[in-house]
């Protein structure tokens, strides 16, 4: 991070008209960061999605109705199982990334299929959790707490579906490739890996948020202060 800040401010301090600077500038490759366009795109999507989810978090915090059972979502339920599934996805992606680094391609196809399968299981699990919620009488219109929950999980699901679209495109190409050509797709696969890691971070952030911002926790904090 400090390197990035130094680079940024160093860049902004350059005097492009200066003779010495001109010599340095002319030897510039034209690229700002040494990463692929695909990874750059994923980083920018992270930025946009972070703002998007932060705003929904804010709406969530803003709108917890008084007297709401804010621990409801955290009682043993399918959300915990789905969280574990997301951890498994991240684990398999980390194995893929390590294999790519070692140029070991024998398990990449299998692991790519596993992460796609697990992601679909996650989505399916989310749908089941929604039906369970509705059966218990908590609909999207019940109160703003549940409205926020539904909208967050829906957008997270759409975000995941967007990732699965690109996963489908990359996987279909990789599965057709011979073992020794898989490394040609390295940029795309590692961009996917970043994308899924981000999905997990957002999910954990959300989990933390619904855990931290609830009446019980706030009361406990107040008791500590008093």
């Amino acid at each position, binding site marked *: 991070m400090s390197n990035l800040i130094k680079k940024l401010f160093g*860049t*902004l*301090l*350059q*005097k*492009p*008209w*200066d*003779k010495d600077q*001109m*010599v340095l*500038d*002319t*030897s*510039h*490759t*034209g*690229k*700002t*960061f040494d*990463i692929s*366009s695909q990874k*750059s*795109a994923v980083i*920018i*999507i992270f*930025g*946009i999605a972070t*703002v*998007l989810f932060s*705003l*929904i978090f804010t*709406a969530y915090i*803003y*709108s917890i*109705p008084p007297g709401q059972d804010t621990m409801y979502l955290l009682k043993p339920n399918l959300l915990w199982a789905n969280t574990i599934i997301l951890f498994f996805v991240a684990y398999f992606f980390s194995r893929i990334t390590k294999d790519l680094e070692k140029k070991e391609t024998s398990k990449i196809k299998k692991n790519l299929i596993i992460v796609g399968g697990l992601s679909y299981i996650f989505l399916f699990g989310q749908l089941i959790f929604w039906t369970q919620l509705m059966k218990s009488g908590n609909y*999207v*219109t019940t*109160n*703003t707490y549940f*409205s*926020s929950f539904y*909208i967050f999980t829906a957008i997270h699901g759409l975000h995941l579906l967007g990732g699965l679209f690109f996963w489908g495109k990359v996987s279909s190409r990789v599965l057709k490739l011979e073992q020794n050509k898989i490394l040609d797709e390295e940029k795309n696969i590692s961009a996917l890996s970043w994308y899924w890691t981000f999905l997990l971070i957002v999910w954990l952030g959300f989990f933390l948020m619904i855990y931290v911002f609830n009446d019980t926790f706030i009361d406990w904090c107040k008791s500590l202060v008093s």
Partner: protein
Amino acid sequence: MSEEFNDNKTIHAQSSETISGGGSSAAPDIDYVRPAEVEEQDLYHGHSFITKWVFCQDAKVIGVQYFLLATFTGIVGLILSWLMRLQLGFPGAAGFMTAEHYYQFVTMHGMIMVVYFLTALFLGGFGNYLIPLMVGARDMVFPYLNMVSFWMFFIAVGVLMASFFVPGGPTGAGWTLYPPQTILEGTPGSGAGILLMCLSLILFVAGFTMGGLNYLITILQARTRGMTLMRMPLTVWGIFTATVLAMLAFPALLVGALMMSLDKVLGTSFFMPTILKAGEVLEYGGGSPILFQHLFWFFGHPEVYIVALPAFGIVSDLISVHSRKNIFGYRMMVWAIVGIGALSFFVWAHHMYVSGMNPWFGFFFATTTLIIAVPTAMKVYNWILTLWRGNIRMNTVMLWCLGFIVTFVNGGITGIFLGNVSVDVPLSDTYFVIAHFHMVMGIAPLMVIMGAVYHWFPLVSGRFLDEKLGKWHFWTTFLGAYSIYFPMHYLGFIGVPRRYFEMYDSPYMTSAVGMNEFISLAAFLVGAAQFILIYNIIKTLKTGKRAGSNPWKACSLEWLTPSVPPEHGNWGDRLPVVHRWCYDYSVPGAKEDFITQTTPPSEVQNTGVEKT
């Protein structure tokens, strides 16, 4: 489809020594350029009419498509403003117009002009056309995504326009779309109208995100050799920073539009408090209308700079080229653009002083609002200092630039009035506010757009726009715009409220009637004057004077393509190599008053350094 890729060529960029046939033997070291490291881009070349001009992946064609569609929406917005002014100046003259129609026209005019006209035109139009050319790229990094971006915008415009034709018509809640009244019965267009507006905004944001990804990655990762960030024209800096703002601000609009749609369709209550209607409690409850205001203005204020920053960048380049001077304080100009961009996320609640906020909150936002005037004023000084002792060409482009500076200063100063809570509260909801924001983010950016059209039209078409018609266009617009907005400041001071269909029997009806008539006549004239440009373009395309290569004798890369207008791929066989920044005008010791960015040092050895 695969045979259409036959024309794809993988070409490797070569150094300038190779390009010029090794003409740098006198001083080979100072011209040294490292071999190409950035991979060559495979481009999709369309062959049929459809793939070449409709579903096209060439950023320049996409830029023109954006420009034309944004202009179309702008004309719709203009006609709506005429209808509003007709009612305000001559109540009842448009027999069909009811108060509901008036509110719908106000709403659609505002949203169209801010989002679908100005934003789309600056970022979609100029961004697409100029970014690859100015940074020396063959195209955007993801051309297919870029094409999809335009067609998403097209569908968004279609959905928005469709709202004119649904039962109840378009939404009439004001362009800020404040709930709860936006989605409640009694507000015009509270049914299908508001839903189509929200859907259109969601599509616009999705489409823009695809385009924005392209702009950012092309600028950061796909520049040609020697093109450092600090050698980029300020136009690119402006578009780059505005795109960053848009990528961070548009999600707020997306979330707001989505939640409001859910409030309307599913009956959620994100923005809906408990409401009594005719003694009956509605099913809504627990939500906060103020939350929507925060979301809207978290988007809405950066939106001002999403429009202004590209305008700042473009006008800097136009002033530099047409006064034959390097831009004064280039680094300061870049810092100001970046600084304004960062600060723009900390001022949003100055639009909400009258929402009943905590006074300390208002104090904070008043402070940040006034701070943002500092980098903005720096830019104004630098434009004036660029002009100072310049070899000014008093052509149409320069006239628009000067018009911009004056108008922007005017609108900016009234912004300082309104940034203060105690001044804003009495002026809020009066015509003073209308005058302020039309000057600063309506007329001022429009003047830059016009200047840019006259400047870059020779690049796009190979012909000069007619100067005489251009000057008529400028003077009518400039004087007309001041005739509209100067009196509005006065109307605001005497307390004439905005958003009123008519003044009824209030004292304003008698005291402001003459002024309202005058403003309306000026508005009709200014609107009509814009058709001079359309006539000029049509005439020029048929019989205009041919411009040839680099007609303005500019330094920046977009004028240095092998063919004019540039072909798909921009640079022929070899990518350009950049040896200097793009503001080497009137350099002491140089034979001509400009040195292009691709001129190697060995060709201009005895030149000095123009201090900036």
